[in-house]
């Protein structure tokens, strides 16, 4: 359990060095060591998707990845999503979409959804409603019934397409 290891991770464009026990998950490292508490833990079993972050450009469940496994990697969390925004409130178009359509209620699952959608819209900029539901099916939300989240993704896809024209 002891034998802490030094790791180096780039999170939201900033480089961090940390000394962690091998059993510390990436989620706990982000939350407890770096204070980036926007990444939430809903099950710690890789099912609910609340802790989804991007690791080297791909979504991962940060509760299932150990911090030492992320050594040398690049992470994007919800806190970094807004930093890419041009919106006056610091919201990425995906976040704006969730606001416009009220794709959130208690907000706990929201960061995981945002990160999943971020990856999804890069792969599929013009998704159909069925494709959106299929892709979101790995993230659980207990408040919204998903309808407004689906609407949020459609809104964001449209906004991103328009901004690129």
């Amino acid at each position, binding site marked *: 359990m002891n034998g802490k290891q030094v790791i180096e991770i780039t999170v939201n464009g900033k480089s961090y060095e940390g000394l962690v026990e091998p059993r510390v998950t990436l989620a706990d490292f982000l939350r407890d060591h770096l204070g980036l508490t926007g990444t939430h*833990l809903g099950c710690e079993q890789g099912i609910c998707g609340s802790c989804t972050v991007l690791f080297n450009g791909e979504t991962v469940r940060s509760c299932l990845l150990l911090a030492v496994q992320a050594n040398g990697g690049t992470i994007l969390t919800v806190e970094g999503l807004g930093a890419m925004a041009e919106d006056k409130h*610091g919201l990425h178009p995906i976040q704006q979409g969730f606001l*416009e359509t009220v794709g959130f209620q208690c907000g706990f699952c929201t960061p995981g959804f945002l990160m999943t959608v971020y990856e999804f819209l890069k792969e599929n900029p013009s998704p159909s409603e069925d494709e959106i539901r299929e892709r979101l099916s790995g993230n659980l939300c207990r408040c919204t019934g998903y*309808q407004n989240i689906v609407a949020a993704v459609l809104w964001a896809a449209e906004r991103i397409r328009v901004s690129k024209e």
Partner: protein
Amino acid sequence: MAETSPGFIGRSVKPHKSRRFLNGSGLYVGDIRLPDMIHAALLRSVYAHARIVAVDAREALQLEGVIGVWSGRDIEDRIAPFPESFEIHPARWLEAVKPVLRGPRPTALAQKKVHYVGEPLAIVVAVDRHKAEDGVDLIKVEYEELSAVVDPRDALSSGAPLVHDDAKDNVVFGFKVSKGSVDRELREAQHKLRERFRHHRYCAAPLECRGVVAWLEPKTNILTVWSSTQMPHLVRRQIAAQLDLAQERVRVIAPDIGGGFGPKVFVYPEEILVPYLALQLGRPVKWIEDRREHFISTAHGRDQIHDVEVAFDHEGRILALQDSFLLDNGAYNPMGLTDAYNTAAHLQGPYKIPHLSVAGTCVSTNKVPNAPYRGAGRPEAVFVIERCIDGIAAALDLDPAEVRRRNFVQPGEMPYAAGVVYRDGEPICYDSGNFPETLRLALEAAGYEELRKRQMELLRQKRYLGIGIGCYVEGTGVGSFEGATARIDGAGNLVVVTGATGHGQAHETVYAQIAADLWGMTPEDVSLIEGDTAFIPFGCGTFGSRSTVNVGSALYEASALLKDKVRRLAAHLLEANPEDLVLGGKRVFVRGLPHRSVSFAELAQAAVPGWASKLPQGWAPGLESTFYFVPPTVTWANAAHVAVIEVDVETGEIKLLNYIVAHDAGKLVNPLLVDGQIHGGVAQGIGAALYEEIVYDQNGQLLSGSFMDYLLPGATEVPKITTVHLESLSPLNPLGVKGLGEGGAIAPPAAIANALADALLPFKIQVNEIPLGPDRVLKLLVNSKRDFRQP
């Protein structure tokens, strides 16, 4: 409303005030970190029922990083037991119902026995959570295993093991309510139905589990506790009572809450233990529940078995209804008779039932405590009555919609006295609503007539389309009270403070809309403080579809009081007559003379005490008013749900094709947010009807303790939901509003079960139990009298 009403009530204002949830800056209990903070983990029982012979923590205490271990014996004389229930029983209700109330009193840590898998036995505090869990693993418990009571029917048999040692049997709560002469009607009726219905055990499963952080602030000596609760004032009261402190020494804060849905409405052992340890150790202590713990320690819901008999005439009119039901409490029911009595109070639904008898019995079993979950007894009642209505339709070969129309309380009969008392002790009286119209709109939105034609066409191809209706009424906005403070701050903005605390309902937007209209402001001029006992001395909380009704009304009354003071102070400063003054745009001005005005900010500065004061002699300083609204009784919302499904008789799979909700919750403050509440409720109801089930084996071991085994519906399982709104204003509060947070979850089990029975009408199956997974559907088909492959 205000003299210059800009009309924000009724508009779909976007929840900009909740923007923090989108950029990761929400603050949940798990996000709180304090200097020198230490961490707790709990040792929980692995047996459903066992005597505790010994707890040996020596090895755990030797582990580096472990600060201490406390077992039941260590706290026995230091932490008082919980009350038998957190329910408040109005005297009038006790008089009218004369219930059996014999609830056991749980302790924060098990003493002599454990009563369910998951019951806390000991708590370990360590420098971090990993170390605390390492410590838990090193504690040795010697148990003497006892036979477990798992089936609530077995709990009643003579010779059943006693869940609680000192009890004479396993019955803890019970009651009977009736009107008319049910026995006579049942004896004489030409047509009768007799059924047993089971509404199974499932759970709220908010995405955020529970959690507590406690800290004794050294300067003020105030014990500050953050908890993921729907009831900060109740938590404060309980901490004070059980730790023998003055309430004034305890401050409870409900920060952002990642979903509640009911099980966060009462006080759990950890909410007492963690503050106790913070006092003992003089350091901040944090405990965060993980999902595995959540399934075995946070209350489950529902779990009722009903034996029902209905008498009806040849036209399908209900003559009498008799229901005797069992509620499986689990080891404790911290909310007493709330769910069971709600079931009785809602059993008649929107229908006229001249003769009624309902008897509820709550029994102890060796399972996780059962407590309110979204709907709290109503989905169970609605499942029963709505299946009965469809049973009547099937018996008489009538359209289920027509049977409903024949039994509805008609709009001309409003207000309608339902003949039994509500939980608040008042006679149940449906205050407003047009039930036939609600159903008509739902059927119209579903395209009911065309669906029936389509159903016949598909049946010829051996495809099974089902259309199910679920209607209900819901008592909303229950007391006993909620308060609001309205305050004009130094910048001339309005601050609203309340004891109710949201967990995803966008209260900050809803109350800002109400306040904006009351004050002639914009929602941006209004800020909300809620969920903190330091800011308002009394509070109930957010549950039971009550906050907009109670907080909205309290805000209305507090604003009226404050506006009076504002107007009189402005009149004094402007040397004008108060009757000539108008409020708007954060100013008070003389009607017709806008240049003669004074701003709210100037008024706030004038209302200070002392040398800078411009108050008239003898006036109290400050611009604020607090009002505690006590509703006369509940106000009744109603809805009609329509579920459209197709059943695959080869696989037993139910595919939800469409879901429609026509909903009447009085004046709607924000239709966009209302739709969100309905969508979310329906999704939970779909989970209940098709996927979610808490399963125990015969030894009381939980078999569905993770999201791998306990299936929450995902985006591919929930169809697009169509909502239609009606607005029958409530006559019982100044805003005309009714509650709606729970509504969506109330009817889906009934509507989907009805849809299944409807789809499989050729096979004459009875759908008396949920969830309707493929296994159960296939079993129904296999057991049906007709070969389901050859109808």
